[in-house]
């Protein structure tokens, strides 16, 4: 059985604005199932850009991307959307919740989209996820009435709703105090160790990075060390 959760072959990406410059240069990466890796590097070195490529949201790159052993490069947008819904949870650098909905609904929506569980079950699961991050009492509050840190925790809960095989976070703890950062880290570790979920997080938090399984260091669109 293929043991790789995510693999890239010579991924290269250019930005054409204002001049054509490569932001990602020949990225070769192999993340194993159940691995908890951190990506670190200076601001502007291309971490977020890489993560968008890995998450299938950005399909404008050269090279190949495999997820769970299947080549996803060149798949249709609809097929990619399905893969994201089913097997990728994403926490954005700036927590993006839907402001017209309650926290609970925000967490539920990707689950409802997947349609694997009934509405009741999805709601039940959403509550559990919120509880893990200590924001369950905010469940019925509108998402735009939350503090930054609270929003970020709800966003992490949303990323977990479909039990995705891969969870990606772009500085998922950027807005959290050390106590909550600890909670998130412990939970991520538990997901990787106990449930075999793969975690790829971009972080500036050295401590957070050091405690993860592996650190991937980036500079100027290249991987220095992994």
């Amino acid at each position: 059985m293929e043991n790789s959760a995510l693999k890239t072959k010579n991924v290269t990406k250019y930005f054409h604005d204002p001049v054509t410059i490569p932001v990602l240069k020949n990225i070769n990466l192999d993340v194993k199932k159940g691995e908890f890796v951190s990506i670190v590097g200076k601001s502007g070195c291309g971490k977020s850009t890489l993560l968008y490529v890995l998450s299938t949201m950005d399909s404008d790159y050269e090279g190949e991307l495999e997820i769970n052993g299947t080549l996803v490069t060149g798949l249709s947008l609809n097929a990619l959307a399905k893969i994201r819904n089913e097997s990728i949870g994403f926490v954005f650098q700036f927590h993006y919740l839907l402001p017209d909905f309650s926290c609970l609904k925000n967490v539920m929506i990707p689950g409802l989209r997947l349609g694997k569980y009934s509405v009741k079950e999805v709601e039940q699961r959403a509550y559990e996820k919120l509880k893990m991050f200590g924001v369950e009492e905010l469940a019925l509050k509108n998402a735009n009435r939350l503090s930054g840190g609270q929003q970020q925790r709800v966003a992490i809960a949303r990323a977990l709703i479909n039990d995705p095989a891969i969870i990606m976070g772009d500085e998922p703890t950027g807005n959290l105090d050390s106590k909550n950062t600890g909670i998130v880290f412990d939970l991520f570790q538990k997901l990787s160790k106990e449930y075999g979920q793969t975690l790829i997080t971009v972080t500036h938090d050295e401590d957070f990075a050091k405690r993860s399984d592996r650190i991937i260091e980036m500079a100027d669109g290249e991987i220095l060390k992994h």
Partner: protein
Amino acid sequence: MKISVNTEIALTYLSSRKKQTAVAAMGVMFGISMFIFMQSLMKGTNDYFEKASFSSTAHIRMYSENKVADAHMLNSFLKDNSEKILINPKQLTQSQGITNPYGIIQNIKKNKQVVAVTPQVTATVIYSSGSVNINGTVAGVSIDEEDKMFDVQTNMVTGDLHDLNRVNNGLLIGKGVADKLSLHVGDNITVRAGTGSPMIMRVIGIFATTIKQIDESKSYANIVQAQNLLGKDRSYVTDIKVNLADYNNAPKVARDLETITGYKAEDWVQSNEQLKAAFKIRAIILNSVIAVILLVAGFGIYNILNMTIYEKIKEIAILKATGFSGGSVVSIFLQQAAYIGVMGGFVGVIFGFVLTFMVSKIYIGAGTLKYLPMSFYVPHYIEAVTFGILTTIAAGYFPARKASKVDPVSIIRG
């Protein structure tokens, strides 16, 4: 009921901007109610004029065309095909009147579309009373059948039309004729047809239609009296009038009757070109007004959705990032358009009916037209709703497609 997540999101977006939703729905409501109102007014008016026109015109009139002798006739008579030149051709004598009218009537009655057939003897006459002469026509009819086909009774001013059957030389005259000759019921009138001798007839009634021209020239007599006027025998008939179950079939049935009988059959469309033209012009006006109304309503929806998408572009990006496909996004926004359309449509139908009903009570009082003619015709309501929903969906589709094309990465990057 299990509602899909797309529906839930669509409804949340609509209810989180209630004011704009209401405004857009009101646009649709206005469009649909105006559609219904205009259609009802138009159909009511058309029906009224159609009815008015059929109160004097049969759906089909059959008569013998005045034919002029030609070489073709001569050839078929002589059974030889050589070229012939006719010098000074004359009108054929048999072109006056219809031969064997009652046999032809039996034949016409066999056509399933035909509901009424009646013979008529039309005589061009000069009415005189005292020293005043006016031109006109006498329609020799069976007044009972005439009444059934054209509802003569409603046009009666004074007198009893059935007296035509009882009084031997009775004449039912138009109001214009009566006024010009200063005649009243019971008075005598001298009537002279071109070929016959003058006859003294008795005014038994006066009628008034909405058409002045008719009132100033027409009169009804018993068919036998008209034949006498012209000095013809009992088998002489100039016209056969035919009414159909559906007058829209008149042109086709007329062609059929022509082939069967060999006489000219003129349908009401031919004899009422101007009526048909008026219908067409009104239809064009109506359709342009409706198109404008629906366009405005459509723009309302287009606008609100475009604004929603502009405001919610980040959220659309999130939805796509969490696995909503382009199709789901289209469905979310198209559903918003559809709900606006349904809300507006529902209220619009009610409002359209109320408006039509209220306007139908406006008193006009011109001639036989008492109230504004409005029709209450169910297909109008169905059409209005169908058009409304189609416009809504068309107006919603373009913004929805734009939303589905949002590239999540470029938005989330900021």
